[in-house]
């Protein structure tokens, strides 16, 4: 059901001789449980209704783009982890593919399959967190705890593969850091098998929950045209009815070989965005199962890209040529040709893009990070108008943004 909120005309009300009111200006954030990190919303309220909303961002601006101009391409990988820190493996992949496009480098099929599996696991992890945070924002503690239990199982798998629970720094330019350990893919399948019933249980706590639907249906409605005009991407765009998914429309890293559906919403409200994310998790499991079934053999890095990817350590320690190659790549960086590329990947939060300007050599001249959360948040002043303060909380939860990415 659509909820109508009209923006009250305070001046007119006061002029009519009714109870005299004043607008109140409050700052929601930057330290606030519902703002998902350090977002500050400067709200102007007439009673409980928002008459103006001005998001102030930049409280987590760490200077990533400037740092990138001072690091080699591989040295920058840990910084990409910390962009969308809920799905670091997906960011790693997007960055690696963008830089590989400078050299038009194709990684072998096994590497592509590993990247797809880890990116989809990262998608599940990110959506679970988004779900949990959304649940907490509207008052559902159980969802948060249940989804964190599932995330801990994912963390265990990530830790086995990469060494870190999250902030994995797993990809390298031209491949991934190491091959999957023996038996890892079986454990991933075992996780998927037990995850789907758990997911149904988690979603059943919210999907037909009267309180949840009252708080989210009809709230934060974004039309498809508005979504495109503000550059929204990901589940926020698909919740508003626009079926754009870069994995299907501009496939990369072997996504074209997997069969999966793309959920698209109809109303563009917070409830639809929640449903889209829930369904995306089911589709991610589908992709993971297909990728593991087709898991190709071969190398996990592009062996013949001698100036880009470092050779395996056992060769470095025994053979002169590989030693020199390793030395050059570690000190000078992977040698990329000059030119400009732009690549966007379908990350859990939206389309994460990297615009790399290279003048040759191992260090980029300019690296612009096109952040999905930055663009998603730009529509906030429009969406929050006329909503009540508690609806603002529901809207923020449904956007599922992350400030690490927004501010870089």
């Amino acid at each position, binding site marked *: 059901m659509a909820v109508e909120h009209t923006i009250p005309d305070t001046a007119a009300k006061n002029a009519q001789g009714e109870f005299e009111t004043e607008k109140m200006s409050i700052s929601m954030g930057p*330290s606030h449980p519902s703002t998902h990190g350090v977002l500050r919303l400067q709200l102007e309220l007439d009673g409980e209704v928002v008459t103006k909303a001005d998001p102030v961002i930049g409280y987590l601006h760490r200077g990533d783009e400037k740092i990138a101009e001072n690091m080699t391409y591989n040295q920058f990988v840990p910084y990409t982890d910390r962009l969308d820190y809920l799905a670091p493996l997906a960011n790693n992949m997007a960055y690696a593919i963008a830089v590989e496009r400078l050299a038009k480098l194709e990684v072998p099929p096994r590497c592509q399959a590993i990247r797809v599996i880890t990116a989809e696991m990262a998608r599940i992890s990110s959506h679970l967190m988004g779900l949990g945070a959304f649940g907490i924002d509207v008052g559902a503690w159980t969802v948060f705890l249940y989804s964190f239990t599932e995330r801990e199982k994912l963390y265990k798998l990530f830790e086995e593969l990469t060494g870190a629970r999250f902030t994995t720094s797993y990809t390298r330019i031209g491949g991934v850091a190491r091959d999957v350990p023996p038996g890892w893919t079986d454990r991933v399948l075992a996780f998927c098998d037990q995850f789907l019933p758990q997911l149904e249980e988690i979603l059943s706590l919210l999907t037909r929950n009267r309180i949840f639907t009252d708080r989210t249906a009809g709230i934060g409605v974004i039309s498809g045209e508005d979504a495109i005009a503000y550059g929204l991407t990901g589940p926020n765009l698909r919740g508003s009815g626009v079926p754009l998914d870069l994995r299907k429309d501009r496939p990369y890293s072997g996504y074209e070989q997997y069969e999966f559906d793309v959920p698209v919403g109809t109303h563009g409200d917070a409830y639809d965005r929640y449903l889209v994310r829930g369904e995306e998790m089911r589709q991610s499991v589908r992709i993971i199962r297909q990728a593991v079934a087709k898991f190709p053999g071969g190398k996990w890095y592009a062996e013949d890209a001698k100036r880009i990817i470092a050779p395996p350590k056992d060769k470095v320690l025994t053979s002169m040529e590989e030693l020199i190659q390793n030395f050059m790549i570690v000190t000078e960086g992977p040698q990329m040709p000059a030119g400009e590329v732009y690549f966007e990947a379908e990350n859990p939060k939206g389309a994460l893009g990297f615009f790399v300007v290279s003048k040759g050599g191992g260090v980029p001249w300019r690296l612009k990070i096109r952040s999905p959360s930055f663009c998603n948040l730009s529509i906030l002043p429009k969406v929050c108008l006329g909503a009540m303060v508690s609806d603002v909380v529901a809207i923020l939860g449904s956007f599922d943004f992350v400030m690490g990415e927004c501010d870089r």
Partner: protein
Amino acid sequence: MVSANTDLTYNSKIEGDVIVSRADAVINWIRSNSMWPMPMGLACCAIELMAVAASRFDIARFGAEVMRFSPKQSDVMIVSGTVTYKMSSAVRRIYDQMAAPKWVIAMGACASTGGMYRSYAVLQGVDRILPVDVYVSGCPPRPEALLDALIKLQEKVKREPSASKLLSA
């Protein structure tokens, strides 16, 4: 010889239903086992902080699961994440609003020293604006490391001469 502030003994057969102890021991015991955090969750470390609060690592065992975002209801501020210069004034103001006794845990490399962000926008360590009691290293620190920090803080609290501070303040 003055005994340690940690002594807290009770034997119902001898003393009946009365506990005799040092004031310090009782006050410190109460304080250390109900440290309510003020989660200054800024970046990635905040996710590990949430993981500590979730079921696998369960900070509730230590009495610290009450993560109120109100500084007036908290005891320890856990600065988790990168503090930028823009955010630093908010962090300091929230610290000033906390009621004594208060402690600070700097969680993670970014909060301790600025971490790997040696850049123009990042405060090089939250100890430039706050007095820090425990530093936790890691990027992000494992939840076990944060629990270890909490235990170290509890031990630090247990060594404080609380009664004389209260009486002299």
